[in-house]
């Protein structure tokens, strides 16, 4: 009994230490520091393409590294690989389980992955010998739904789950290499750092965690949100993290200052953030909301600079292509739209 009480006190004291240490380096705010730079001005993007073909809600999309192909997942039980320029469907992959919640494109372009309420991450080989797309591996070990997955390479993938853990898998053997435990709520989203050394996870415990992939450790934990974090992404230089939450706000946390630098919110926005993606310079943050819109924020000045209104239902996923040329939104209205 005595040790438990001592540990509790030590934990509280450490939390106070962290709060104090963060305050010590808080010599200004990002908004103050950015006061002198020119405002972005109104950002007006137009729908350039509409990708039609899914028959039910789209839950996820991910751009391929070539900035042309992208993959989407829908609860119609299909993964579709699209050529976003021609709008042609390159592959239409039927899934064993239609309850899909996430999909990912491998950087090589050879593989795609998906998963959901089946608690598994299924890997598909797009470049099989006979031209047919087949399941290459089924990664099964999570005891909760698969909320997100991201490839490190053709041989490794990271998954996040409703069982509160994230896992690094060896795709060839189909086994768990590392289990990242620490979140106290369902893990909803993950993103890999540009140098592939770290990943961040957002969860229903209202926190985001930074994980060192090879050391298998949580390095930093970021709080502040007042509800589930549904979406997470890295600022393009890898030094900051952006989160989107059911509390209707997005937040930017700097990794090296170890604290929140900005909150993106407006009193007129009262619905949850479902998805987010920064533009390639990091200046713009595109965030999808439950009210069918995408709001575009100036990340430095924390002002709303644009809106993408074009879907007839919740925007569930969003992605900016790696060359920054276009943004893709996916919706419960079953369509994907390409904007720039």
């Amino acid at each position, binding site marked *: 009994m005595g040790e438990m009480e001592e540990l509790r006190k030590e934990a509280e004291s450490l939390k106070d230490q962290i709060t104090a240490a963060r305050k010590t380096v808080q010599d200004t705010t990002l908004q103050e520091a950015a006061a002198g730079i020119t405002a972005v001005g109104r950002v007006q993007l137009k729908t350039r393409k509409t990708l039609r073909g899914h028959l039910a809600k789209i839950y996820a999309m991910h751009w391929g590294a070539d900035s042309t192909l992208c993959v989407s997942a829908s609860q119609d039980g299909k993964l579709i690989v699209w050529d976003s320029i021609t709008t042609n469907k390159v592959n239409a992959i039927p899934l064993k389980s239609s309850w899909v919640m996430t999909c990912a494109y491998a950087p090589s372009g050879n593989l795609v992955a998906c998963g959901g309420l089946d608690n598994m991450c299924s890997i598909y080989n797009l470049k099989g010998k006979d031209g047919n797309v087949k399941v290459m591996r089924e990664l099964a070990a999570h005891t909760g739904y698969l909320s997100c997955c991201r490839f490190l390479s053709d041989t490794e993938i990271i998954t996040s789950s409703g069982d509160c853990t994230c896992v690094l898998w060896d795709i060839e053997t189909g086994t768990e290499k590392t289990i990242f435990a620490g979140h106290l709520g369902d893990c909803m989203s993950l993103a890999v750092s540009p140098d592939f050394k770290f990943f961040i996870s957002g969860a229903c415990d209202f926190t985001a965690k930074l994980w060192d992939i090879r050391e298998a450790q949580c390095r930093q934990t970021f709080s502040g949100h007042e509800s589930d974090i549904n979406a997470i992404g890295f600022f393009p230089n890898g030094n900051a993290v952006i989160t989107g939450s059911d509390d209707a706000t997005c937040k930017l946390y700097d990794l090296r200052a170890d604290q929140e630098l900005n909150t993106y919110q407006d009193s007129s926005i009262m619905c949850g953030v479902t998805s987010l993606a920064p533009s390639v310079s990091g200046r713009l943050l595109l965030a999808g909301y439950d009210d069918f819109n995408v709001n575009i924020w100036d990340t430095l000045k924390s002002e709303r600079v644009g809106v993408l209104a074009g879907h007839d239902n919740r925007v569930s996923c969003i992605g900016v292509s790696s060359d920054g*040329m276009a943004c893709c939104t996916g919706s419960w209205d079953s369509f994907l739209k390409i904007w720039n």
Partner: protein
Amino acid sequence: MTSNSNLSNMRRLVEQLKLEASVERIKVSQAAAELQQYCLQNAGKDALLVGVPTGSNPFREPRSCAIV
């Protein structure tokens, strides 16, 4: 849940907090300056920010007429 596993969870939490407390932090002014610098340096190639001329937009059909 046994009191033993509660204890080991608590020990793990304290170890984790010690790790997170030991992180080296830079000043917010430096972090902010570097974020700004990155944005400004890469603004030119951010198509969503500065736009892209119609001719070089892969997602727009070029408006041209062919004389048949």
